[in-house]
Structures are given as C-alpha cells and as structure tokens.
C-alpha cells in the first residue's frame, strides 16, 4: 500500500472534518502521481470508518485496531504508525494539524528519519519532488519548502485550508488490517482525565465561522451577545488578547500571535481594533467582517466587509436578521 497516505483522525465514531479535507487534497496528489490514496486509521472498533473513507476518495484503508489504541497515546501511536510506514513505504503521509497530529508526526518522523513539514497550507508535486507552502514569521512571510532525498515525506496539514472531499456513494476501497503488537512498547504516558471545555459546540480552529470579541465589548457579561450570535450561526467564539488579559474570557479563547491561529471561512471581529498581534492569528480567514465604532481601526484594512457602528446596537439585530434568513432558507 504505497502511494499517498492520509492519517484519518476521528472522534466518537465519526471522521473529523479535517480528515475529509486531507482526503480531498490527498486524492489530488495521488491522481497527479498516478498512485493510490490510502487512509490509515488507528483506534479501537474503527472498522465502520472504512466505508466513509472509501466514499471520500480512499482507494485503500489500513486499519490498526486494538484496545490499547482506543485513545491517543504518543508511544503506542508512534510505534504503530512508524511500523506501518516502514513496511508499506508510502511516498507521502498527510497528517492533520490537530493537537494529537502535531504531537505524533514529529516523533514518527524522528523515528523514521523522515522529512517533515508542518503548518502546510498547500502541497503539490513538481516532477519527483513534493513541495509545500507554509506561513512563517507569524504570517509575515510564506515559505516554500521541498522534500529532498529518499524515504517518507510527512506533511502536517493546517485545517480549514482545503475543501473537504465530496462523498461518492457506493465507492469502495480495499480494506486491510494491520497486525498490532504493542507488547514491547513502553507506555509511560497515561491520560487520567479528560475535561470537555464547556461552550464549544465547534472547536475554534475547526469552525467554519468564528465570532470574536475585543476590548470594545467592555466587559465579560457582553460576550453573551457573541455567544448568541455564534449559536445562531453554528460558530465558535473567540477573542483578541485584551479580554483574556482582563480575565473576561478564558485563555483558550485567544486568537493571535500569543494564542490560536484560525482560518475559518468567515471571521466576524466585533469590537476588535486589529493589532498586528491579533491579525497574525486570523488573517488567513477567507472572509473577514469587522464591526467597530472607530473608523480608523486597522481591522478595517483587512476586512472584506467593514461596518462602522455601535456593536451593542448592531449585534442583537444581526442575530435577528440571521434568524430570519435561516427561517426563509
């Protein structure tokens, strides 16, 4: 099963959206090279995922199914993935840039002596070379980097950059089970607790729409306005740095150089002035809508639609307007 591989990340029996995005990109690469697209799945009881993987473009599915793989652990996952790559010699492996993907991929690369490029926002084949593009210097430059030499190529792919693969009903794939033997693998890390973080209907980095608040919200209570808008849009809520520094919202809300990087389809910046440190975390968004009362706010320089006005008057009416449109649709 050489060719192009995608590490299929899944949660609660479902493929993550980013897996579908990688299948789409992986399909294009496989076609360009005239090779197969293979999905690698690690977990327990993951066989039902083979169908959806095939329907989203995989020609082959490799299942590593074992009770010890039921949840992510760096040692077992590194062992299984490295063995699989070592044995089957894929030309390239696409790994989702998630908390676990970023934990796992460099370690696998180190074990195999593979080439690794992270934060990939584009990937293509040039002759026999695989070439990637990635944002650097807090998005103040874009680097183009080529894999050189022989051996595996691992690309850790940013979410929300590639469109998810279309579903082709009835499409089939060759499914194979990998032999998993973990007896010799030391397990020195153990998850003792998992806490769901409240609100998040959608995780901030995966959301298609992000509604984000800044200093202009004036206080923690006003984030309820954004929560309401986000609920209506199916969006996630984030913030710039000042609300975090002021303790209005938890740290994991922060978007920017010191927080998360997001690139949703739509980013709605509410009461955010647009300091460079914030722009570093969201300027990859496809559309930016900004609401701010200061017509000179730098956020307007990157906004696809800038609205000068009072957020406290506009946001509640926007909730109503969105509700009306959705009811009509």
């Amino acid at each position, binding site marked *: 099963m050489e060719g192009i591989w995608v590490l299929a990340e899944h949660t609660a029996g479902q493929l993550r959206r980013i897996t579908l995005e990688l299948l789409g990109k992986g399909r294009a690469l496989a076609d360009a090279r005239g090779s197969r697209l293979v999905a690698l799945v690690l977990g327990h009881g993951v066989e039902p995922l083979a169908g959806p993987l095939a329907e989203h473009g995989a020609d082959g599915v490799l299942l590593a199914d074992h009770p010890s793989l039921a949840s992510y652990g760096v040692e077992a996952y590194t062992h299984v993935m490295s063995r699989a790559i070592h044995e089957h010699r894929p030309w390239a492996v696409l790994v989702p840039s998630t908390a676990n993907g970023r934990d796992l991929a460099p370690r696998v690369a180190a074990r195999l002596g593979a080439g690794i490029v992270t934060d990939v926002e584009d990937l293509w084949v040039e002759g026999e070379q695989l070439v990637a593009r990635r944002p650097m210097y807090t998005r103040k430059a874009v680097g183009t980097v080529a894999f050189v030499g022989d051996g595996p190529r691992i690309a850790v792919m940013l979410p929300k950059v590639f469109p998810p693969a279309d579903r082709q009903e009835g499409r089939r794939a060759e499914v194979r089970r990998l032999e998993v033997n973990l007896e010799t693998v030391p397990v020195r890390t153990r998850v003792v607790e998992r806490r769901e973080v409240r609100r998040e209907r959608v995780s901030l980095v995966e959301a298609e729409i992000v509604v984000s608040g800044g200093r202009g919200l004036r206080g923690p209570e006003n984030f309820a306005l954004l929560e309401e808008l986000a609920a209506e849009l199916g969006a996630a809520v984030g913030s710039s740095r000042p609300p975090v520094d002021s303790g209005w919202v938890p740290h994991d809300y922060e978007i920017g150089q010191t927080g998360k990087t997001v690139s949703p389809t739509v980013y709605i910046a509410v009461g955010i002035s647009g300091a460079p440190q914030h722009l570093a975390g969201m300027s990859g968004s496809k559309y930016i809508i900004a609401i701010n009362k200061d*017509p*000179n*706010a*730098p956020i307007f*320089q990157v906004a696809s639609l800038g609205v000068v006005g009072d957020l406290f008057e506009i946001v509640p009416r926007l909730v109503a307007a969105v509700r009306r449109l959705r009811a009509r649709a």
Partner: protein
Amino acid sequence: MDFALREEYRLVQQTARAFAIAEILPQAARLDEEHRFPAEIVRRLGELGMMGILVPEAYGGAGMDTLAFVIALEEISRACAGTGAILAVNNSLVCDPILRFGTEEQKRRYLPILASGREIGCYCLTEPAAGSDAASLRTTAREDGPYWVLNGTKSFVTNGAEAWLAIVFARSEPTEGSRGISAFLVEKDRPGMVVARVERKLGINASSTCEVRLEDCRIPRENLLGSRGQGFRIAMHTLDGGRIGIAAQAVGIARAALEDALAYAQKRVQFGRRLVDFQAIQWKFADMSTRIEAARLLTYRAAWLRDRGSPHTLEASVAKLFASETAMWAAHQGMQVFGGYGYLRDYPAERHFRDARVTEIYEGTSEIQRFIIARRLLEGGNP
C-alpha cells in the same frame, strides 16, 4: 570607536522596554490624569534593579553604569515620563552622590533600601529665591552639640511627597557664595522636615513636585554628606549626572511622540490616503527620527565620559540642551500629525507635549545649559 551596544546593554534595553510596554504604558494616561504616584511600578522597578542601577551589588544595586542608566531611563520615559522622573531622581540625584561622597556607614545604611525600590529619595537644592543661581541658597545648617539644625524652604523637589530620604543643601559656613554650602542626609521622619505643598503642574504628573520646609530640623552630625563646605561641588557634580538623565528622559519622550504619531498616521485616512502616504507627513517623521538619533548619541557620549571618569560637564549640558529641545519639538510635530485629535486628552500627543516642556527647565534651564556651553567657548575650548 564602536557604536554597537555591548550585549549586557542590549539586554538592559530589552528588559526595560518589555517592562515599560507591558506594565507601565497601559497605566500612563491614568497616572497622568489622576496625578497618581505609581507605587507598585516603583516597587517592581526596584525588584528589577532599576532604582539603583549605579549602586554596586554589594549595596544591593545592579552594579552597572551611567550608560545602562540612560538606556533604561529612555525606555521607562517612553512609556511614562513621570515614572521616568522618579527613576531619574532616585538614581542620579540620590544614590549617585551617596555612592560618590558618602561614608561606608552611610552607603550601607541608605543604598540597599533606595536601590530596592522599597523607599525612594529626593534632592533639595532649589529654593524660592535660588533657582538657576543655586549658590545663593539661604537654608541654614547650625551646629548644636552632636546635631545639625536645618532651617529653610526648598522648592521644586521631585519625589518630595513620597521620599524617605532627602539630600538637603544648606549653608553651614559663614562664607557667602558656593564655598559655605554643605550637603546633608535627612530622613523623612526627622521632626521639623515638612512637605509644605504638593504643586499643581503641567506634566510629569505621576511624580510629585513639592515645597519642603525645614523647621529646626535636627539631624545627627554623621548625616553630613561629604565634608563641610563641599556641598556646592557635590551639587554640581551630581547635576552633571542628573542632566545626562534628563537628556535620556527627553529622548524617551521624543520617541513616544514619534512612535504614537507614526502609529496614528498609519491608520488615519484623509482624502482617501493614509496620512503616512503624504510626503509632508513623512518628512516630519524623518526629521523627528534624525534628531532623536542625534540626541541619543549625545546622551550616550556624555554617559560614556562620566563612566570613564573624564570631565563631562560640557557634554552633559550639550546633551541635555539638545535632547530637551528635541523632545519639545518632536512633541509639537507629533501633535500636528494628530491634528485636532492631538489636542484632546483622549490621545497621547498632548501628554507628550506637556511632559516634554519640563525637560527644558529642570536640572538647569536651556539658558543655563547655553551659558555653560558658551562659557567653555569663551574660555578658549574647542568649538
């Protein structure tokens, strides 16, 4: 000649800049508005070693030099000129003379406390009738057994309201003029030392400016700083260092004026273009930047001479004169860039304008600096 700052100075600059931007700048407008002494900031500046930069490590200081002092002071003043004034006085007008002229006992007693930022000091030279003409001061020091008894009024005392220790210059000898003056160390809790008034003023509002009265204030004989009659020399040598500090403070204010105006001009749009896209505005920034650079180099040179133990009265005056007039000019230009908004309290330009003004006045007016520079020329020094 090497214009590159050595590693330790760059680290001082980085740490002072990071602290100033993160911890002082967000409070600067409010400190100014409320005329509030930044007690917590001063305590933390002490922890960082910035209240006793010149004080050797043995006395609890940073063990650095005048160059490190001016580098740190520029950064602090860029965020808040009033906080810069507090730091400047404590380092150059209080710790420095104790270090140079104090006895071992005095150094051990006062420097660790002053360098830690737990307490600060003030400098009492000027009097209502003796400003630029300091040698005509009238405060008296009379011997009485094991005590000195001080009487008089001191004005324009920076840090006066908060200081724990004052350096007081008084006439201890019957001779007129500069020769009869001595310097004394007066703790605030000495009976007879009274803060008579906290002045209302134009700028540097985070620091207090006070009138201090000495009414039969008794201090032990061992609180004499230096020797009898040496006071005027101590005052002048101290002011040479103080002026280098004011130059650094002025450079910081000028930079604030430039940086804030530049940020504003990059986002303000008129006639469909950003202000920075107009050549008339660009030239202002070019001129501001050039003068600031020159002022900084003059300041560094004066600091370097002082650290080498070379004469530097002239160079300190040159730096102070040029830097303070640069600050005033840059604040003027900066406000112009802001236009009408520059005149409003909501924007920082008018604060820089008010803060800059004092640098042309205190620790020797521009006229006194020109007098010192011209006198050197008339004495046949190199122009």
